[in-house]
């Protein structure tokens, strides 16, 4: 999107707060994500009217109402498809998609994966609270096996999936994870997603205080964090632990945790590797067997869908005038 005509006065987070009263449960993780986004947008040098937020349905999908930008609260699971139309119709816009684990991965799985495959230039924020919040607490595709919910009183039996693994399976170019309890990290990751040319998926570990409270605490809690999260930084070794005494090492193609490893053996993160194997392996590290990686797993540019589509139009226009008369009279005609 263009960054040409930045507005006279620099924007502040206030400029992005809509007049509507925010209506999530007190303590919901969505608040801090909203704050993080409102903190990042003013730093991008893009005029406010060029931001568009498209969402599906879910607690998370109420997000656009709280942003003083263009916003479209669409239907369940279809936000990436609607957003694709928005971006194609006006490539000059920066289009954000707000979605949940149910919205994106359950009913919306197909549009989610095809938007990533085509590399439509969308910034997708997936609020992963591992539950269906809005419909009062049914389990979701990211819920652990055995999750007791209104629809699974005896525990869920579906194997969950990782949004990031699925995204990489669909050839996503930018894939990241952050958490609602770390506003600074959210800000950095969201800024990177905004800067990335092409579709960018950001999974936010989000807490639903009502239906899945503390679901992420075992790894992102204040106490648990140090030993259970590993921060990925391009070019940096993958160390974690209170004294960074632990590290991730490679055994064949398997990533394992090692105590007090030498610098040489610790895996160094390469977010720019064209090959997505490392990112995929990292996307499968899950609690409790492994530390949960947060940060940017992959940031590789791929051809932009809207550019390629518009290039064909430009090329065609360069060759021929849009002349209706010519069109009507093409092919064989006769006069009476």
């Amino acid at each position, binding site marked *: 999107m263009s960054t040409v005509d930045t507005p006279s006065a620099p924007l502040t987070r206030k400029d992005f707060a809509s007049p509507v009263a925010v209506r999530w449960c007190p303590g919901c993780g969505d608040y801090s994500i909203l704050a993080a986004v409102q903190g990042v947008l003013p730093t991008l040098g893009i005029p406010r009217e060029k931001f568009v937020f498209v969402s599906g349905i879910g607690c998370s999908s109420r997000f656009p109402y709280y942003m003083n930008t263009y916003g479209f609260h669409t239907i369940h699971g279809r936000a990436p498809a*609607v957003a694709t139309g928005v971006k194609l119709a006006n490539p000059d816009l920066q289009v954000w998609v707000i979605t949940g684990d149910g919205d994106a991965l359950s009913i919306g799985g197909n*549009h989610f994966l095809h938007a990533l495959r085509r590399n439509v230039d969308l910034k997708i924020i997936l609020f992963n609270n591992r539950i269906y919040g809005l419909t009062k607490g049914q389990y979701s595709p990211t819920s652990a096996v055995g999750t007791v919910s209104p629809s699974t009183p005896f525990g869920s039996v579906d194997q969950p999936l990782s949004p990031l693994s699925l995204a990489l399976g669909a050839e996503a170019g930018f894939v990241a994870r952050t958490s609602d309890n770390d506003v600074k990290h959210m800000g950095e990751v969201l800024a990177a997603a905004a800067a990335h040319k092409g579709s960018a998926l950001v999974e936010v570990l989000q807490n639903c205080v009502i239906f899945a409270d503390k679901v992420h605490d075992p790894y992102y809690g204040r106490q648990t964090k140090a030993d259970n999260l590993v921060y990925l930084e391009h070019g940096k070794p993958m160390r974690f632990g209170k004294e960074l005494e632990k590290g991730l090492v490679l055994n064949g193609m398997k990533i394992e945790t090692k105590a007090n490893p030498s610098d040489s053996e610790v895996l160094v993160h390469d977010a720019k590797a064209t090959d997505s194997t490392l990112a995929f392996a990292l996307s499968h590290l899950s609690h409790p067997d492994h530390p949960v990686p947060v940060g940017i797993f992959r940031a590789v540019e791929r051809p932009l869908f809207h550019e390629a589509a518009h290039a064909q139009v430009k090329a065609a226009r360069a060759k021929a005038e849009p002349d209706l008369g010519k069109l009507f009279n093409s092919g064989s005609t006769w006069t009476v």
Partner: protein
Amino acid sequence: MVSPSSPAAVSGGSSPEKPIEEVESVTIRFAGDSGDGMQLTGTQFTDASAIFGNDLATMPDFPAEIRAPAGTVAGVSAFQIHFSSHEIKTPGDDLDVLVAMNAAALKANIADLDVGGILVVDLAGFGEKDLEKAEYTESPLRHGALDGYRVIEVDITGLTVRAVEHTGLKGRAAELCKNFFTLGMMFWLYDRPAEHTLNWIDSKFGPKTKYKDKPEIAEANRAALTAGYNYAETVELFSSHYRVKKADLPAGKYRKISGNEAAVFGLLAASRKSGRDIMYGSYPITPASDILHGLSRQKHFGVLTFQAEDEIAAMASVVGAAWTGALGITATSGPGICLKSEAMNLAVMAELPVVVIDVQRGGPSTGLPTKTEQSDLLLNLYGRSGDSPVPVIAAKSPSDCFDMAYEACRLALKYMTPVALLTDGYIANGSEPWLIPAPESLPPIPVKLAEPVADFQPYSRDPETLARPWALPGTPGLEHRIGGLEKAQQSGRISYDPGNHDAMTRERAAKIAGIAKDIPAQAVEGDTSADLLVVSWGGTYGTVSTAISDCNRNGIKVAHAHLQYINPFPVNLGEILGAYKKVVVPELNMGQLRLVLSGTFGIPVEGINLVRGKPFRVSWLVDKFQRIVKAIA
């Protein structure tokens, strides 16, 4: 024998030897195996007739989606053309001539050949194997199975191979020219000029094409055409040949056009006239895919075509594009409309300009994908949750698809609403001459975009049209949020207020109902002094109106109202219906418009219903109308 290379030799000059009869109109069907090129033969004969100045209508009949083994009935492909010296509106009921390139083609089509009609068969297609594949226990050419027809047996394949020998073409390659030999025979029989076809051969296989190093191909096709023509003339094949005079059509420049082509042209015209680029999101489906194909060749009109992952994404993408300022368009067939309904409903709530074209096919479910039907009317009217009114209009013929596609865009943009346009497989694939309009002559489509104001109200309404403003993302000062939840009047904010929902529901309904003021009053054709009014809609116009003219010509009084606007109905429709003793609705479904007419006007309406995957037969309708008129009297 004339030199094959000289086009003049076969150009329409009637030959003295044989008597030439005048006939008014003729219906020919070319039938053969999918591989025999019957569609091409038919198209060439059509073009020749069009250029000659006849009025005409055509109907291709492809084998069902699946590829059938060569030589089987399932694999038969046919092309029917009806050409005439007076105005015609249908591809014809009974055939004057049937060309059957093999046994299966004969089996599949003989039933439609008129008694005493001409049957041309290629003997090479009636061998042991062919009969077996066609599931004939014995050859239909023997035992008088075909008595009552004027059977003309020709070893077309054999003669073709010999005719092209000098070009060096052999075997299958040589045999492939047999459709041109056949075409040549028909050219002679109906005294058609061959220039067009000879030029076509040149443009397709000539020195300026990728075949330039294979001159034998063009030469062989020319030779086959000429040979067929001369063969028909020299050998005692036909007792006489025929001439169908020019029709006196309105003066002007014409082209042949199919419904899907016409729809593409109409959409492009609307885009130019409204100044809004088209964002066309679609997912391929028979028989709508050609609209996607057609538009994707016209990118220089600023058209973006998006082949989505499914119909839901296709619909959703055009809703997003329409919100962003594009003219959002999608097309599909019945099963796809089912999938689009939820996202189309979002466009109803968001009040955005999108056009949804349903090229109807046989249903329910996968049904008869390649056959025509009119059974998606109720789906388009009512197939969305909640009270969800949208304008529903229908095209009546191939060329009318141009006007109706244009009209659908006009309504969508003027009233900020999704519009459903119904066509069907019959008019989408069928073709007819089209009097080419001057682009300047098309009605303007003014578009007003919202301009920044102090306190922008996304759901304020134009007092006249009740349309809401179109505020494009990217416009400074118009930032706003919309969505699928009920909105407050004016502000468009979420509202759960009971009174507001009732009011908004009525506003949405009033906006669509108000369109009645903006569409032509309903016309009545035929004999308006009749007791019987026949009401039809969509692709049956040709057959129904022809049947009604026939009736009136024979003193059976029938009036005819053909609807192009089904929601809302024209303002004067109720009055018209009230003026007749009996109202009858013939439809290619089980009575869908009938239900809506009775339901809307609270009067009894009778239905004539047939779902055979084909257009009505004019004679069948005439008979029905006749009985009904008798019954009234």
